[in-house]
C-alpha cells in the first residue's frame, strides 16, 4: 500500500496556502480558511503520528522513483510526533492570530505564509534527503523572514537584518556541507549516505562535512556561541509570530542535528564532546541572559537558548536514556514555548506592554487566568510533575551513567535560573500592583474585544496548557513513545532498511 499519509501534512498546508492566495485581499474569508486549513492539517498529522507509533517507519518515494534515486519522505516516530506537534502549535497560533492579527498584516499575506511555514516545518521533519532538507529549510527561513518583517516596524527591521544575515549564513554553510558530502559519496539520500559513510574510510573529510552541518544547524538552533540572532529579533514581530517561532524554528535545527548526528555521523568522540561543551555553555549563558532581561519576550527568548542546551546535551551523551530525555524535552519545549509567547501576547493585550516595569496587577484582576499562566510557567520551569520535569529526570540519569558532572551541574543551574527568571515575571506582572494603570489603560485593547474574540485568544493558550499538563501527568505514555524513538534513533539500520528495502523500490 502506498503511504500517502506521509505527504498529507505537507500538501494540506500547501493547498490551504494556495487557496488563501486566491483570496488575497479578503482578510475575513482568510481567517476562516486558515483555521479550517490548520485544523485539517492537524487531523492528518495526528493520523500520521498514530501510524508511526506502531513502530513502523513509513516511507513514500515521491515520483515513484526508488530510493536512493528519487526524493523520499520518511516518517519514523520522531518525525511523526514532531509533525503532530508542529501542526498543533500552528493550529493554536492560527486561532490566536485570527483575532490578534489586524487587517493590515492579514491582507498582506500573513495567513498564507503561516501555512507555508507549517508546510516547511512538516517537510523538514519528513525529508529523507539532505538536499531536500536544505530546500525545506529555505521555505522555513524565507517564510520566517517575511513574517518577522511583516509590518516593517523599526524594531522588526533592525532585528530582521541580523536574523536574515545569520540565517542565510547558516544556509550557505549547510549547503557547503552538502557539497562535500555529495562530492565524496555521490549521494543525497540520508539512508544511502548513512550506508556509504559507514563504509567510507575518509573519516577526516566526512568530519569536515559533519562540522559544517553542526555549525549550520547550530546557528539555526541557536546554540551557544551561535545564538545571537535570536534575542535580537524574536521579540520584535507580533506575538503570534513570536509564538510559532519560539516554539518551532529552533527546534527544526535541533531536529536536523538529531537526525544527522544519529544517522550519518555516529561515533565521533570529538563531535560528541563538542556537543556537551556547547550544551552546557548554552544552558548557563542563556539562563544568565534571561535573568537580566526586562522584556517578557526577551526573557523567553533567552530561555529558548538555555533549554536548547538540554536537548543538545542529550545529543552529546547519546545513550538510550539521554535520547529519551532529549526528545521528551523537545516535545515539551515546543508546546511550552509556543504557549509562553502566546501568553506574552495575551499579557500585551491585557496591559499594553511587554516590559516588566509597565506591567502588573493581573493576579487580582484575573485570578483564573493567572492560575493557567502559572501552570504554563511552572511547566516551563520543569516543576514536577509538570511536563518539563520528566525529560530532565532522564537527562540527569543519563549524565550520572556517563559520570558527567558538567551536565548535572548545568541542568541544575539552568533549571534554577529558569525558575528565578519566571518568578521574576510572575512577581512583577501578576502580583505587583500595576504601576501606572490609568495611563496604560489607553493602550489596552482587551476591554474593547467582543466576547467571542476573547475566547478565541484564550482557547489556544488553554489547549496548549492542557496538552502540557497531559504530557506531564501522563508521562509514562510519552516515555513509551520516546523509548520507541530512542530505539529507532540509536539503531540507524532500522531507518536504512525502511528506506532502501522498501518493497515499492522495485516498481
Amino acid at each position, binding site marked *: 500500500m*502506498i503511504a*500517502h499519509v506521509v505527504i498529507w501534512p505537507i*500538501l494540506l498546508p500547501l493547498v490551504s*496556502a*494556495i487557496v488563501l492566495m486566491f483570496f488575497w485581499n479578503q482578510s475575513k474569508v482568510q481567517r476562516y480558511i486558515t483555521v479550517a486549513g490548520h485544523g485539517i492539517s492537524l487531523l492528518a498529522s495526528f493520523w500520521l503520528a498514530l501510524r508511526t507509533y506502531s513502530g513502523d517507519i513509513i516511507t513514500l*518515494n*515521491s*515520483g515513484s522513483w526508488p530510493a536512493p534515486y528519487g526524493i523520499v519522505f520518511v516518517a519514523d516516530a520522531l518525525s511523526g510526533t514532531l509533525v503532530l506537534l508542529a501542526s498543533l502549535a500552528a493550529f493554536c497560533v492560527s486561532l490566536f492570530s485570527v483575532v490578534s492579527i489586524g487587517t493590515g498584516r492579514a491582507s498582506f499575506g500573513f495567513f498564507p505564509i503561516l501555512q507555508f511555514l507549517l508546510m516547511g516545518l512538516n517537510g523538514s521533519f519528513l525529508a529523507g534527503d539532505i538536499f531536500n532538507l536544505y530546500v525545506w529549510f529555505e521555505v522555513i527561513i524565507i517564510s520566517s523572514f517575511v513574517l518577522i518583517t511583516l509590518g516593517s516596524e523599526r524594531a522588526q527591521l533592525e532585528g530582521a537584518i541580523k536574523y536574515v544575515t545569520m540565517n542565510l549564513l547558516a544556509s550557505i554553510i549547510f549547503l557547503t556541507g552538502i557539497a562535500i558530502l555529495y562530492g565524496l559519496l555521490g549521494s543525497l539520500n540520508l539512508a544511502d549516505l548513512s550506508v556509504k559513510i559507514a563504509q567510507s574510510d575518509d573519516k577526516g573529510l566526512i568530519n569536515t562535512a559533519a562540522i559544517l552541518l553542526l555549525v549550520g544547524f547550530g546557528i539555526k538552533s541557536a546554540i551557544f556561541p551561535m545564538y545571537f540572532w535570536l534575542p535580537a529579533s524574536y521579540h520584535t514581530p507580533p506575538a503570534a509570530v513570536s509564538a510559532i517561532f519560539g516554539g518551532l524554528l529552533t527546534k527544526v535545527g535541533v531536529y536536523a542535528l538529531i537526525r544527522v548526528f544519529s544517522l550519518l555521523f555516529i561515533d565521533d568522540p570529538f563531535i560528541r564532546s563538542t556537543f556537551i561543551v556547547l550544551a552546557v555553555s548554552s544552558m548557563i549563558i542563556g539562563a544568565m541572559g534571561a535573568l537580566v532581561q526586562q522584556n517578557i519576550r526577551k526573557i523567553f527568548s533567552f530561555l529558548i537558548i538555555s533549554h536548547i542546551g538540554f536537548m543538545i546535551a542529550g545529543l552529546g551523551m547519546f545513550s538510550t536514556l539521554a535520547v529519551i530525555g532529549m526528545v521528551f524535552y523537545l516535545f515539551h519545549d515546543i508546546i511550552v514555548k509556543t504557549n509562553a509567547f502566546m501568553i506574552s501576547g495575551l499579557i500585551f493585550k491585557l496591559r499594553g506592554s511587554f516590559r516588566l516595569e509597565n506591567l502588573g496587577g493581573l493576579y487580582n484582576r484575573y485570578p483564573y487566568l493567572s492560575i493557567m499562566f502559572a501552570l504554563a510557567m511552572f511547566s516551563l520551569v520543569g516543576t514536577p510533575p509538570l511536563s518539563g520535569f520528566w525529560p530532565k529526570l532522564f537527562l540527569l540519569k543519563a549524565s550520572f551513567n556517563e559520570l558527567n558532572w558538567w551536565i548535572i551541574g548545568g541542568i541544575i543551574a539552568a533549571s534554577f535560573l529558569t525558575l528565578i527568571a519566571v518568578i521574576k515575571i510572575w512577581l512583577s506582572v501578576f502580583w505587583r500592583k500595576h504601576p501606572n494603570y490609568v495611563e496604560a489603560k489607553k493602550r489596552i485593547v482587551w476591554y474593547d474585544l467582543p466576547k467571542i474574540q476573547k475566547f478565541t485568544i484564550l482557547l489556544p493558550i488553554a489547549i496548549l496548557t492542557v496538552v502540557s499538563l497531559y504530557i506531564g501527568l501522563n508521562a509514562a505514555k510519552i516515555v513509551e513513545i520516546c523509548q520507541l524513538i530512542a530505539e529507532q534513533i540509536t539503531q540507524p539500520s532500522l531507518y536504512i532498511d525502511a528506506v532502501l528495502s522498501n518493497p515499492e523500490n522495485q516498481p
Partner: protein
Amino acid sequence: MNTIILKTASKYLLPLLLLFSIFVLLRGHYLPGGGFVGGLIAAIAFVLHAFANGLPHTQRLMRIHPGFLMPFGLAISAVSGMFPMLLNQPFMTGVWKKDPVPVIGSLGSALFFDIGVYLVVIGASLTILFTISETR
C-alpha cells in the same frame, strides 16, 4: 531619443521574447531550458517593455497583477503533482499520454508541472521588480 528606438523595439520584442520563452519552456525536456529559464526570459521581456514604455503601460497590457500568476502556477504544479495520487500512485509520479505530441514530444504531468514553474517564476520576478519600480 533612444527611448523611441526602445519603444518600437520592445513592441516587437515582447511577443518575440514571450514566444521564445514558451519555446524554451516546452523544449526543456529535450534541450537546455525549462520552466525556470523560460519564466525568467518572459520576466525579462516584460521588464524591458516596462523600461521602454513605462510601468503603467505594461501593467495595463498584462491586465492582471503579476502576483496572481503565482497562485495559478502553484496550483497547476500542485495539481499535477497530486493528480497521480488519485490513481493511487505516489505524489509527483509521472503520468504520460501514450502518443507523443508534435513540437513538445511526450505529453505528461511533468510538462504541466513545468508550466506551473514557469508561471510562478514570471509572477514572482515581476511582482518583485514591479513593486520596486512603483515604490521608489
